[in-house]
């Protein structure tokens, strides 16, 4: 009797497991490929722009769309949606969307973008993503494109961004640039900044929580650089208001298009070449007044790449 019960239990488990696996096939039996698009908040351009670009590229694929804006029970919403549809792949835009899908688990391939904490998800099986910021190597290339006479670029970092600096050192070398990296701590902050400003031709800002630990300290950093007529290169246009000369940030529409190509690869049964991609498109903001104030040599041919011009 016990043997029979064990056998029945084993069979039951096998059926359950097989049904779980068949709920997330790479291509459905009917030939349609259904994609669940989960947007953290479509009222925000940061999430809406990649979502729109994604939809424009998907063509004939069937999309099931969920907007989690204001949704206090996103996991329930998504579970209900997944139960009601045979989903072949999921595109998550933003951390709320990705975190909720991650919580639900499952084997369905997930593609994501516009997630600041993407590193948390980079080793998940079936997860593919576009990172939030332009590759450091690409940022350095853009700096050189605009200001070919600047050879020494100073950068402040902490333990948090140490790996970024190691990669950036190699990229800088390939670009014939000298990266002057200075590690910060709270005690020696101002001294380190002043030392760097004394020897460098530009300052490169990284998304480092120690370097940018407060609004006041960030403003001070920009003011000190301005006093020395040293241009600041940044990774977000937000810093243009603080006095950055150049900012290189990810083009959101391109990240949506990259996600679409990843989904199209999955539809063809091909795993995307890289599970994590850097954004392939960039938006360039340039402050021409700073260029003139600091008497910088700007390659005018680079101007046809500018998305935003300030103070001209």
């Amino acid at each position: 009797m016990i043997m029979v019960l064990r056998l029945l239990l084993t069979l039951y488990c096998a059926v359950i497991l097989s049904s779980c696996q068949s709920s997330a096939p790479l291509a459905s039996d009917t030939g349609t490929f259904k994609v669940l698009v989960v947007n953290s908040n479509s009222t925000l351009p940061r999430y809406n722009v990649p979502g729109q670009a994604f939809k424009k590229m998907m063509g004939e694929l069937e999309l099931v769309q969920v907007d989690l804006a204001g949704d206090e029970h996103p996991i329930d919403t998504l579970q209900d949606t997944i139960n009601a549809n045979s989903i072949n792949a999921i595109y998550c835009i933003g951390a709320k969307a990705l975190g909720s899908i991650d919580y639900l688990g499952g084997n369905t391939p997930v593609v994501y973008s516009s997630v600041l904490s993407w590193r948390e998800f980079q080793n998940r099986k079936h997860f593919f993503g576009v990172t939030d910021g332009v590759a450091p190597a690409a940022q350095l290339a853009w700096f050189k494109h605009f200001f070919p006479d600047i050879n020494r670029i100073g950068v402040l970092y902490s333990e948090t961004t140490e790996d970024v600096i190691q990669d950036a050192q190699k990229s800088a070398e390939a670009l014939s640039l000298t990266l002057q990296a200075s590690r910060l701590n709270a005690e020696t902050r101002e001294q380190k900044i002043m030392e760097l400003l004394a020897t460098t031709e530009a300052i490169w800002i990284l998304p480092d929580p120690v370097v940018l630990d407060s609004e006041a300290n960030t403003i001070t950093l920009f003011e000190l650089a301005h006093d020395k007529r040293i241009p600041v290169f940044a990774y977000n246009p937000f810093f243009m208001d603080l006095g950055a000369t150049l900012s290189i940030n990810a083009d959101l529409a391109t990240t949506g298009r990259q996600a679409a190509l990843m989904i199209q690869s999955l539809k063809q049964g091909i795993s995307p070449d890289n599970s994590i991609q850097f954004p392939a498109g960039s938006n360039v903001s340039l402050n021409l007044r700073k260029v003139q104030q600091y008497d910088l040599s700007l390659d005018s041919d680079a101007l046809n790449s500018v998305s935003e011009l300030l103070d001209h």
Partner: protein
Amino acid sequence: MSRKQSTPTSLKLALAALLCACGLLLSGWAGSAGAQTITVYHFNPESHSDRNLVLKNTFDQYFQVSHNIELQPVDDRSTFEGLIAESPPSLFIMSDWQFHQLEADRKDLIPYLRGLKDNNDTFHKLLIGKGPLSPQHATVAVSGTDDYVYSLLGKMRLNTAPLPMQQLRLLTVPKDIDALLAVSFGMADAALATENSYEKYALLYRNEYQQLKVLGTSQPQKRLVVALFKQHLPALQSALDALVDMDQTPNGQLGLKLLGLDEWTQLKTTRHEGGQP
């Protein structure tokens, strides 16, 4: 007697007043017509449209100094062609590729100015990759619209086997340098970029450049053209003059650089003179 004489005098005065009023009205109308804003529409399928705001701000800043002209960038081809279909008294900055598509149906649409860079009115687009493209699936990073890109690729002189056109996937990026970086960083298998961008990349990123190969070269492409409807030429002369003078002021030069140009030159032989653009 005096009353009899006064009547013709009154009539003459009334007539004179009426003529004056008409003259004033006419001169006022003419003045207001002269002050009407001339719109310069811009759409370029060769490049991405994320720069419309910076183009408008820069051009309008230049135009506002002494002209009553405004730039109106257009997001997409169908809207742009819809505007042209209405034959307004406006100027149209467009790619030469698009102009040649339109001219067949609109014989009165004439090219008037051509963009120059380094005294050259022609450029080539190159297909650049690390090696031949896979016939199964290949991603090409491009900064132009899909229809323009497919048209260009279809007529390209290739250094490799024919392109797997049906299997090609286009990744639209904002700029040529983005497209080249996408190949270097593995987001695309090939990039479509101007030879000028490729030369810049060589100076910028020597190591990566050395790994790239030219897989194909486009037919020669003429640079941007300013077109208008022949019948509107007299009314648009001031705007054409303003465009020609752009290279004379810093703001104008900035606008030209944003379009990737150094100057505009008047086409010597235009169709309305019986020649070819």
